[in-house]
């Protein structure tokens, strides 16, 4: 909606295809150059870690080497008391379920608050207050309400975490519409429903995806924190707790790494969906994640 610094086309209409500037090098090369520093730091960090632990003779139970973590990951991948892959899967399902529930609730409340000022007055303070409660306080309650072994108790933990950013962001996206855009719609004699569909919802999409990116990470946190307070033994949170109390810190680390990778993949999937849904959006022009 704005003339950005990226505007490149000339004033005249002679130019038929104003492509973005900066096409001097192929896309893959730009990607490599963009990500190379991060990759170097990451790999270098791992090597340094491996060497320091070896040189300083740090006990494995305090700080295992990356190679030991990798070995633990391999040894406990599919089976055994600390089977990591099925655990990660179970935790991911909880997180996904929580993300779905929290997002749905957040979007519904956002639409209500955006539509009715009275709903905003009634719900927003409550939502802010609920958001201020430390999430851990809810975990035993959720286990009690929905059952320790029922994944739903962990989903609800995740959902509570996801709810607020979704609600707050989507509300903002629905409400923060350029006044001139509303005047334009009024001049078309558009109904409130049309304005919602054609202006407010598309306007809220970037806000929604920002919340979803946050939610992807938060839902995993919610699920794992919920698991700390009890649950099926084959979930990441239980494995972290159990392996730590068994002094198998290599497995603890392996579970943490797996959780991190799951979170990153989760996040990337949402970024990919976002790009597919909003090919027009500004963040994609600059190539940021």
């Amino acid at each position, binding site marked *: *909606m*704005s*003339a*950005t610094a*990226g*505007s*490149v*086309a*000339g*004033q005249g*209409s002679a130019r*038929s295809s*104003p492509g*973005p500037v900066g096409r001097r090098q192929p896309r893959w090369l730009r990607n490599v150059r963009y990500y190379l520093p991060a990759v170097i730091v990451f790999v270098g960090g791992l090597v340094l870690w491996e060497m320091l632990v070896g040189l300083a003779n740090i006990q494995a139970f305090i700080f295992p080497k990356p190679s030991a973590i990798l070995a633990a990951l391999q040894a406990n991948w599919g089976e055994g008391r600390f089977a990591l892959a099925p655990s990660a899967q179970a935790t991911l399902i909880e997180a996904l379920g929580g993300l779905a529930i929290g997002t749905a609730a957040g979007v519904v409340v956002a639409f209500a608050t955006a539509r009715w000022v009275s709903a905003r007055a009634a719900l927003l303070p409550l939502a802010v207050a609920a958001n201020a409660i430390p999430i851990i306080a809810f975990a035993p309650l959720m286990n009690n309400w929905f059952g320790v072994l029922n994944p739903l108790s962990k989903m609800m933990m995740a959902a509570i975490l996801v709810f607020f950013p979704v609600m707050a962001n989507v509300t903002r996206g629905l409400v923060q519409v*350029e006044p*001139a*855009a509303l*005047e*334009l*719609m*009024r*001049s*078309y*004699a*558009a109904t409130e429903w*049309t304005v919602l569909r*054609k*202006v407010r919802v*598309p306007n809220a*999409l970037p806000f929604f995806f920002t919340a979803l990116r946050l939610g992807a990470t938060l839902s995993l946190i919610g699920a794992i924190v919920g698991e700390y307070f009890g649950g099926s033994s084959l979930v990441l949170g239980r494995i972290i707790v159990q392996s730590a109390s068994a002094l198998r810190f290599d497995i603890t680390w392996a579970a943490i790494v797996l959780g991190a990778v799951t979170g990153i993949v989760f996040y990337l999937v949402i970024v990919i969906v976002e790009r597919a849904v*909003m090919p*027009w*959006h*500004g963040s994609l*022009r600059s190539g940021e994640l």
Partner: protein
Amino acid sequence: MTDTNQPVVQLHGIDKVFGRGDQPPTVALEGIDLDIRMGEFVSLIGPSGCGKSTLLRIIGDLIAPTRGTVVVNGKPADQARRDRDYGMVFQAPVLFEWRTVEDNVKLPLEIQGASAAKRTARAKEMLELVELGDFLGHYPWQLSGGMQQRVAIARALAFEPAILLMDEPFGALDEMTRERMNSEVLRIWERTGTTVVFVTHSIPEAVFLSSRVVVMSARPGRITKVIDVDLPRPRNEDTRETRRYFELVTEVREALRRRKDDLAGLGSVDRTMAEGAVG
């Protein structure tokens, strides 16, 4: 629309007072009477705060006047708006970034409920009119500011409005782009025959474009002078260098300045009275 003698816009006794809660009310417009004939190009010019944009919004039924009547095409302004007699162009292009250029122009037609075939044909026709026929599939951010504003004009013309309301549409553009856009608007106006009400604070722009320039004063917003611009048409870049053009620019400038002198005189009178009161 059929009767060419009847004004397209009839403003009678328009007052607009803005008052918010405990603040003293601001008189934005006072006693505005104005008729705009069909096919006219009328500019509203005045210092900022003179209510020219407010007046435009009252004509377009985006806000209601405090007093007075607005008749557009022989009916009340809100009926005219519901009949989609207006095309609006704002200072910002207000293009929706999730829509391509073509889909932005189609938007009013979608809301109107036009058939898909008509929407496509009309959007193409309008974009060709503003010489953007090659940019149908582009997104707004891929266009320069001037091009975006041309898309906005194409969109405003999409359902053949009886009246085009333009609120400082080129205020954000540089001088050279602005002059080019002025010629462009004249070309479009001559081809479509649409009645245009054009808000600006640029004297040369007002003179170059208009058949009549309505000069307004600030606080309260009043019409101080209406100047007929008798420059021959079609106008082009050479028009800007004719003697008559300069005379008219001067006339508008003086009309704007005279009002300021009046106010300055008023100020000194006030001061004398105040001093007298103190002494």
